């Protein structure tokens, strides 16, 4: 499956739906698109429900995005990460950097809870 990013905003929170593979071929695309979105908001949900595979370049891109979001006092929450994609996060200890949610709604709600 080709890599796709579809972004939409839910109030002040941007939801980026990642699908297919995030690897060396498209990690730059992810970073660029994220930087564009970062101009409008700093809170993101990466909906990974349709994400099949991530390699270390992809992981590096997601971590870079997180660093940029944190630098502006924002955050990225990951939703619907498939077990085999999560394995890569666990292996590289990137798991400790993120908060995981079973779906995008829960991830959105977590932002709301934080600001309640």
């Amino acid at each position, binding site marked *: 499956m080709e890599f796709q990013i579809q972004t939409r905003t839910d109030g002040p929170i941007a939801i980026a739906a990642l699908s297919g593979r995030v*690897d060396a071929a498209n990690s730059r695309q992810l970073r660029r698109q994220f930087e564009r979105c970062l101009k409008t908001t700093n809170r993101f949900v990466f909906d990974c429900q349709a994400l099949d595979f991530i*390699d*270390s370049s992809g992981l590096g891109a997601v971590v870079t995005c997180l660093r940029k979001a944190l630098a502006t006092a924002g955050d990225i929450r990951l939703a619907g990460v498939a*077990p*085999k*994609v999560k*394995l890569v996060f666990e*292996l*590289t*200890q990137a798991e400790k950097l993120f908060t995981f949610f079973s779906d995008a709604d829960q991830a959105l709600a977590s932002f709301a809870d934080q600001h309640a």
Partner: protein
Amino acid sequence: MKTLLVIKANTFDWLQAVFPDRSPLLASVCNKPLLEYLLDFAILCGSRHFRLATDMPLAKVEAVFGGGGRWGIELTYAPIRKTDDLATALQKNSRYCAGSRLLVMQGCFFLHYDKQKNYGPFMQTTAPGELLTCATGRILIHDATPLKTAPSPDGSPPPLALTSLRSIGELYRLSMRVLGRDARQYVLPGYNNETDVYIGRNVMIARSARIEPPVMIGDHVQIHKNAIVGPGAVIGRNVIIDAYSRIHHSVILDKTYVGEHLVLDRKLAGGRRLVDPGEETMVQLEDAHLLSTMRPSSRGRNRLQRLGHGLLAALLWVVLAMPYALLSFILKRQGRWRRSEAAYWVDSSGRSVRLTRVFLNPSGFCGRIAASLALDRYPLLGRVMRGDLALIGTRRLPATAANRAVIEADAGYRPGLFSYAEAEHWPVPEYDQDIVDRFHLAHQTLIYDFVMMVKVLLNKLHEETALCKSISK
């Protein structure tokens, strides 16, 4: 007593689905093939003849087990068809089975027994029929040889149980159980001087690495600095655990490279495949720097590589002799060529030699040509031919006390005339270079080294061409 083991390929479908390139018959628990546990048990039962009847390819199994001489038994092999049932298998092996009690094992399972017990009397006095069964196999005693009257010594049967093997998760849990609880019941491979620590041959463990029992480490394993292995780790043969990685409650199969700063907790890894045995999920990684397949090491291969490096060095020595003589003469006269000597560590045992260093100023036509031909390294080619240096390897470290500590702490040190990082055109810092060097060292072969060497020389040429262009602009 004789033993007949009947195993069919379809009983290992679960294993083939996850590790298709590994022989199911050599699937192991705690670095010991399942088949070998059954051989051991047959020997405890007093069986001196063991036959494996299977529809799977036998070449790899025969290469490992041979004729059974290592166990003091006669091991034979018999092909069967996929459609053959047990009765057909028995019929096809009727000559083997005739004239003796027969212990028949059928299916894919793990047999729990205790090496301290004598199963011979029990097997001789047990009536023919099904002895043990589980979802994926059974053990039975075949034939109606008259029972001997002697009862088993203590009157109660010795411990014996079967565990089904239907998934990679079950295989993982079994490995953890044998390592953590039942290790004393079996003959397990490796030296066992410390409780719950089994270490194989040719294992290199960096001083700063930590081994926490229970742990089992196979042959030809390297554990690099600050790595933590255990508790509950089974490391197969020909494995490299690179620096700062942690392996807890996990199984690393043979021929696997585990990259730096990784954590494997309750996982099973083999080659590029990483499995979560709890969730039964598997991912095949594409980053060789994380997990990848290793080639087995051997002393013969090392000698061959040294010879190959020496021959290539000799070839370079001949080809570059004229340019070296001419250009070094000219550059010396121009004051752009200086030589000095310094001591360098040449292996991780702490042997050092004095090596010539050439400082070459690459400005000017002659300097650029000399630099692009890497003539500053020419005086070291003799050291490669003598075997002190590899043609391409890790970064050379000066013989200082601090560097001695580094090479002793790090098993992967093979200094080269050129470093792998140069082939990758890897920039500073040195720490990054070391990661690149160690990765390539773990994966190198003679051909691989040759390709990397060509890359280094092309890089040198490219650097000088780029420099020329920038000067002309």
